[in-house]
């Protein structure tokens, strides 16, 4: 027995130094990614991370112009056009095209967001050239056949119905329509728009978006700069120079609405909350990432998680984070709680926002946030897929090519003063709109106020 106790004591004698090192930087916080700027023979620029450890290649491309810039009468056309690029091209109909993708063990997809269209390609090295050829025909020779178009429209019509009781859809729509009611970001697809989408509309949308003017490419994996350059010309070489498509204006946020309730028969309510944010080129962007980690971004370590989940058991999870679109920026949070506890969960959340707004963060919290944010970054860079996501995300956001290796130094330089400045700027509790979807109890009075 004594021996066991002694063993335990010895084991934990070493715990102190480990904790003492907690505030020090891990080796991983200095991990760099070798991103190289390449220019193809035809003059198209791309970012390349060449690493042959795993015999695969990941490619991402992005063009400006998304669903926020499509015509009012054709809402959803960008997304349908993007989907239709992999529904038949060249001499392959939809099924032949998908079978060919499978036989090559590759994945190829196009998707539309609010502000742009992205392409994602993943291939094994052994099928690399055939995979690039598939991307080329998808981009340049889409058939836009009637049958797959009709199928996608049938699927969209069903989704228009299922979204009616989807709490996340309802809450986000309420938030968008409250914060910037007249902006395209507050629009959604509808039956008339879906029915109006035809082949001519797809052709027109494709021509409007795919050009060299806004094209951004990231390639990661088992490929040399010379081979990557050839691949780029194969896929993108025939694109016209074109110009950046027209975009919607910047959104102007309305004053906060303290509480919006949308009734939905379910035992647990979804709570979303949002207030004004900042764009990622704002000088306070990096301090905001630290401030947000402290308030609600840090998993189990955040103030909200501690107060709402750990101390009171009101939720399974609660979190906040900056949310940036090209023409609007907000701070956004979410939680889910039993209908009977919604009021308390909102009160505690508001109180925590008010407390950090009033008293600021502490130096210890800032230190912890910095060691987490800098140390954990390498966890997002430990595979080709993750490197492609992070590096291409920075590229599409307009960052410099070296940003991925400068980001940790910028975070290390954040001071308590910086964090408290951004808290005063952005965490005013009166600036937050709360949306509840469910059958919340005891909120009538609050809603009336």
């Amino acid at each position, binding site marked *: 027995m004594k021996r066991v106790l002694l*063993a335990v004591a010895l*084991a*934990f004698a070493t*715990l102190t130094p*480990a*904790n003492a090192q*907690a505030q020090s930087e*891990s*080796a*991983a*916080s200095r*991990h760099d990614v070798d991103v190289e700027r390449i220019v193809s023979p035809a003059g198209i620029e791309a970012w390349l991370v060449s690493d042959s*450890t*795993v*015999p*695969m290649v990941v490619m991402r491309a992005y063009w400006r112009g998304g669903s926020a810039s499509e015509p009012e009468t054709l809402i959803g056309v960008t997304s349908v056009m993007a989907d239709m690029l992999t529904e038949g091209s060249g001499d392959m109909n939809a*099924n032949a095209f*998908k*079978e060919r993708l*499978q*036989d090559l*063990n590759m994945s190829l997809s196009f998707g539309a967001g609010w502000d742009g269209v992205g392409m994602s390609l*993943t291939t*094994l*090295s*052994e099928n690399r050239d055939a995979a690039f050829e598939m991307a080329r025909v998808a981009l340049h020779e889409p058939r836009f056949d009637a*049958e797959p178009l009709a*199928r996608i429209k*049938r*699927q969209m*019509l*069903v989704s228009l*119905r299922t979204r009616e*009781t989807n709490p996340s859809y309802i809450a986000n729509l309420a938030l968008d329509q409250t914060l910037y009611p007249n902006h395209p970001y507050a629009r959604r697809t509808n039956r008339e728009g879906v029915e109006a989408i035809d082949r001519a509309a797809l052709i027109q949308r494709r021509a409007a978006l795919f050009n060299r003017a806004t094209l951004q490419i990231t390639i990661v994996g088992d490929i040399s700069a010379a081979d990557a350059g050839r691949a780029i010309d194969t896929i993108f070489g025939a694109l016209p120079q074109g110009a950046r498509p027209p975009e919607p204006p910047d959104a102007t946020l309305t004053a906060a609405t303290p509480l919006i309730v949308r009734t*939905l*028969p*379910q*035992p*647990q309510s979804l709570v979303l909350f949002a207030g004004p944010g900042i764009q990622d080129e704002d000088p306070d962007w990096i301090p905001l990432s630290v401030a947000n980690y402290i308030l609600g971004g840090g*998993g*189990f*370590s955040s103030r909200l998680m501690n107060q709402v989940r*750990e101390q009171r*058991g*009101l939720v399974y999870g609660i979190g906040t984070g900056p949310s940036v679109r090209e023409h609007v920026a907000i701070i956004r949070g979410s939680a*889910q*709680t*039993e209908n009977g506890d919604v009021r308390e969960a909102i009160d505690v959340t508001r109180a925590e926002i008010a407390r950090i707004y009033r008293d600021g963060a502490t130096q210890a919290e800032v230190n*912890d946030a910095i*060691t*987490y944010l800098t*140390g*954990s970054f*390498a*966890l997002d*860079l*430990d*595979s*080709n*897929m993750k490197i492609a996501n992070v590096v291409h995300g920075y590229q599409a956001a307009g960052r410099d090519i070296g940003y991925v290796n400068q980001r940790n130094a910028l975070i290390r330089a954040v001071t308590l003063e910086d964090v408290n400045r951004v808290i005063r700027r952005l965490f005013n509790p009166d600036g937050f709109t709360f949306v509840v979807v469910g059958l919340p109890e005891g909120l009538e009075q609050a809603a009336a106020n």
Partner: protein
Amino acid sequence: MGQRLIAACIALLALTASAHAREFVRPETFTLRNGLQVVVITDRRAPVVTHMLWYRVGAADEPRGYSGIAHFFEHLMFKGTRQIAPGEFSRTVARNGGDDNAFTNWDYTAYYERIARDRLELVMRMEADRMRNLQFSDETFASERDVIAEERRQRIDNNPGAVLGERMRAMLWPHHPYGTPVIGWLHEINSLDRETALQFYRTWYAPNNAILVVAGDVDAAELRPLAERHYGRLRPTRDLPVRTWTVDPPNVGPMRVTHRDEKVRQPSFSRIYRSTSYGTDTGRQSHALDVAMEILGGSETSRLYRALVEEQRIAVSAGASASSSGLGGGSVSVWATPVEGVTLEQVEAAADAVIANFLRNGPTDVELTRARNLLTANAIYSRDSQETLANIYGASLAQGESIDDVVNWPADIEAVTRDDVIAIARSTLDINASVTGWLLPEEGQ
């Protein structure tokens, strides 16, 4: 609770193999004197590690009437020891730039940390500590019970499809513990007590009932002394119970269930069948089953999708999949969602016709080659992720497979014949061993 983890992605690791080989390089492995099995998968690309401790205990091992205790206990493992204050475990990992979490299945409970390689020893020390020295108060227990009730509402009760799925499983496994939801029934969650939780912990949490998987910037020579120092000192449990689960009576016929909810806007059809699993079969039946379900419903080129969605245009989605990773058996599922104006009777009949044709005529050679090729490609892609590799090895070992089984998986898939596919499809897709579920709006809605 990812049930499809393995079926979808068994794979692996050939860091020294030829670039084109669809094979697994064997991870390094050793066993400590106290019985802890250790698996090391080296990937030096980034200076980080994934440290996972898998216990061979899960929801299927719960005493009857205490559903949810395995998952509940997973939450309690973050509530501190004599040395670590409540919540301090995750805070310490975060303060060192790491992420941590845990998950529970019927067959296993797993805890993991992802962190810089120079912090590996810190998490090993804390993980070893909480294997034997957990401490938590009654207040902590009660508060966490509320958190888990919220988790259940979020995952299940708010979602009519999940509620139906839970009912279907309970019918498919009427006596076997796989019929009980991992998260537990709400009334039993609400009556769980601290002493039962501790009893569960003392019974099952032991080095000789665990598998340590470390992937990333480390090799066995580097890891071994750390494993000896932190886990090697833990005493094994001498009287570890044998995992014996109740078995279901023979099936007597098709079962059906209809679930209505006013939130349902689009009806849907689904069916689950009992099947073999990698943990129970003795040959390549589960490999053949994975191939069969890929052909029947694994993608948009599959039999079900092509027939119901593309050719007949009566469904917006249709598919099938195998959940074949279980230690104590598996299941396959088939589903379809009709287009506007088409009934569930129609899509169900159409799905049955596709299944009947598949059972009668089997796959074509082209389909067979394509499906095998697709599955084995995962062996290369999974090498891109140390997390994926750690999950595959950990889950496979916890679910009754060996390192060899994983290493040989692509070759075994390649060896699946047309006759194998027909035989397993015919024995599995038996309506008398199935539960059919219809999800519908409230009547009159």
